[in-house]
């Protein structure tokens, strides 16, 4: 009885907080539509504080920051939204608008050929989806193998055998993709420069020479950390060390 009571309370509070977040989100949207962007941001941030998020929430936050001309935060939240929902056209579009505000021009070196092909396939699903497909394929394979084992007619046996082999092969491929995607995601640690102007050093200390300068809103890849310095890599392949304070990691969630 007591347990039941606890469960009920937890469930109720869960439903209540869900409802509260919904109203917060709608209030935020209303404020945004009235042009009160800063207040809208406060509402959206209140939702984030309850450890709840969604691509739409980040998208709206990015929009509000864009309206307030906050370069780095708007790009930051658009990128976050894009992480959660990589295929959304609106996010892509508004991110392009926000990127127009940045100062640094960095050339992207495009990947070509087979590696690009592999990458596109790997990135078409997240690793959890790949894992689920792998599990399904494993079940299917076992069923087919058993069918082969248990069936008596040679025709059935042949079909079961061939399809089980195909199943096993695709299982291996899917698993490989899952691992590849997982590794790529682990390596992919983007961050946004928040400092108005930041000196990127050649070594992780203040004495070393300046390698180049970055400005607010530029997206970088973090590849290493030493104390409060982060080694970053730009899209065009330049590397350097930047102060922790100057950037904000996208994968903080």
């Amino acid at each position: 009885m007591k347990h039941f009571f606890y469960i009920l309370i937890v469930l109720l509070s869960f439903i209540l907080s869900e409802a509260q977040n919904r109203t917060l989100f709608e209030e935020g949207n209303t404020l945004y539509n009235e042009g009160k962007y800063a207040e809208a941001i406060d509402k959206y941030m209140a939702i984030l504080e309850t450890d709840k998020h969604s691509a739409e929430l980040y998208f709206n936050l990015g929009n509000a920051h864009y309206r307030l001309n906050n370069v780095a935060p708007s790009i930051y939240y658009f990128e976050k939204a894009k992480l959660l929902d990589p295929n959304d056209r609106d996010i892509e579009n508004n991110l392009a608008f926000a990127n127009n505000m940045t100062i640094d021009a960095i050339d992207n070196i495009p990947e070509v050929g087979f590696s690009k092909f592999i990458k596109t396939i790997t990135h078409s699903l997240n690793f959890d989806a790949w894992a689920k497909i792998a599990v399904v394929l494993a079940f299917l394979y076992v069923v087919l193998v058993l069918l082969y084992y248990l069936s008596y007619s040679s025709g059935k046996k042949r079909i079961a055998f061939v399809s089980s082999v195909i199943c096993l092969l695709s299982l291996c491929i899917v698993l490989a993709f899952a691992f590849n995607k997982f590794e790529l995601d682990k390596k992919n640690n983007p961050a946004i420069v928040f400092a108005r102007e930041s000196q990127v050093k050649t070594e992780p200390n203040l004495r070393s020479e300046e390698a180049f300068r970055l400005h607010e809103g530029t997206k970088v890849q973090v590849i290493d950390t030493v104390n409060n310095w982060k080694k970053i890599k730009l899209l065009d392949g330049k590397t350097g060390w930047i102060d922790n304070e100057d950037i904000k990691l996208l994968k903080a969630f």
Partner: protein
Amino acid sequence: MRFIKHIVFLFIITTTVASAQVKFEAKVSKEKLGVNERLRIDFEMNKDGDNFNPPGFNGFTVIGGPNQSVSNSWINGVRTYKKTYSYFLAPKSRGNFTIGQATIEIEGEIYKTTPIKVEVTAAIDKPKDPNDPDYVASNNIHLVAEVSNSNPYLNEAINVVYKLYVAPTTGVDNWREIDIPRYDDFWSQNIDTKGQRVQNGTYNGEEYRYLVLRKTVLYPQRTGRLNIEPLSLNVSVQVPTNRRDIFGSRLMTRVNRTVSAGNRTINVKSLPEKGKPADFSGAVGDFSFKVTASKTELDATESLQAKVEVRGKGNLKLFKLPKLTLPSSLEVYEPEHEENVSTTTSGMQGSISDTYTIVPQYKGKYPLSSVSFSYFDVKTKTYKRLSSDEIIINVLDGPVNTSSETTTPSSNTIKQTVVSNNNQFAFIKTNTDLVTTKTSYFFKSTLFWSLLLAPFLAIPLVVLVRRKKAIRDADVTANKIRKADRLARKYLKGAKKQLGKKEAFYEALEKALHNYLKAKLRIETSDLSKDRIQNLLLERNVENEVVNNFIAIFENCELARYTPITNVTMQEDYEKAAKTISLIDKQAR
């Protein structure tokens, strides 16, 4: 008479002797002189001679001479003759020198002078001749360089003013600059002084007239002690003399004189290191700073001008303006530099500006981030930083950066096509499904691994089960036993449930046995007497003992309803029934 004769004789003698004595002497103007003074030496003789041979003037340079002078005078019928060779000598150095003997030949005999010792001492102040025009000129003409600040900061403006002071009694005809100073280590600019009028002023407490010859503004470019070279002038001066003309006014003589303003040393302080901003570009003075844009709302491919301007007083031409940082997606041309600076004695003032021409290519908002400009304020001796406001350029119409396809509305048709404008900044989303931020991933979790590998365990399991089944199927008798056991269990299932409850158990047990017989022997319930059961069973080759057991159980069932029976007996009866059924099943045909 004899006495008179004597006197006459004596007179004659003396005169002849006197006229006969030849004198040749050397005389110096002074025996002790300063090294800066001059010496005159005269060689005098009272009879004309030939072959004058001057001595070697060791330690002196002959600057004048030999000058010859002859004087003949008759006084009371007595003739005096004097011939002089004079030299002007300047000592070469300090010390004691001896001027050697000079020789001359007079009436066939050679006469010599005595050597003279001269002592040359250190330079002595020359007594000035107040009537010497040069001296007068030097006292009445002064060239002065006035420096406004001899201890300025680096890049702080100072000025040098050259003034020519002329005493009221003298006049200046003309001047010519001999040596114009070059201001190394300074940025300098001359200020035009043409048309300057003569002004009255005092110099050393005396009334003077003065003229400003030259004004220069200097900006020290190096710290430390810097030298300002002197300005030298050649001035023609009108100096009054003691002579007067017939009207009684003084006659003037003209003297050329070189005047120079002495070297001046400026001690330039470096700017303080404390609080020096990182973006300090050397601006010293008092400035205002602003960044303006000609327009903030425009269409793509229109142009706008952004102007970075510094206005004020200071070394405007000597520092660089801060650069404007612009978003990379804007097309920017090289800035046009414009200087509107006038230089006065207090330094440069005016404004300098960089004008950037910007052409946005794509639609969107572009912030021109704030630019900061820092300078050193000489008055407060501190660094100051001015920041401009951020300007947002709003490009209202134009293509979007990412999508290359631009919507081109057909203009020549009358009907206006409705163009879906998907190149807009998208509105916020109104619907959302919030999920927790603390996501746990399925991939690489235990569940994932077990789900992936568990199916594979099923394969050997199935194979094993199937093998066992095959073996069991092969064993016929065991199969039969198993079948009988299963049958007994099936019928006794109801009874087993009631185990422990006496009446219900035995009722169920009896019912189960009946049912079994009905199924096995195909008899109706009405026929179910013990004898009949016995006969039927025996007919089917069931052993006598087993049949008796079966009947005994039946009897037990009836009996048990009226007698107290423990759980243990109940269990025994149940097992017995099961065994019997199984045996009957085995034996019956």
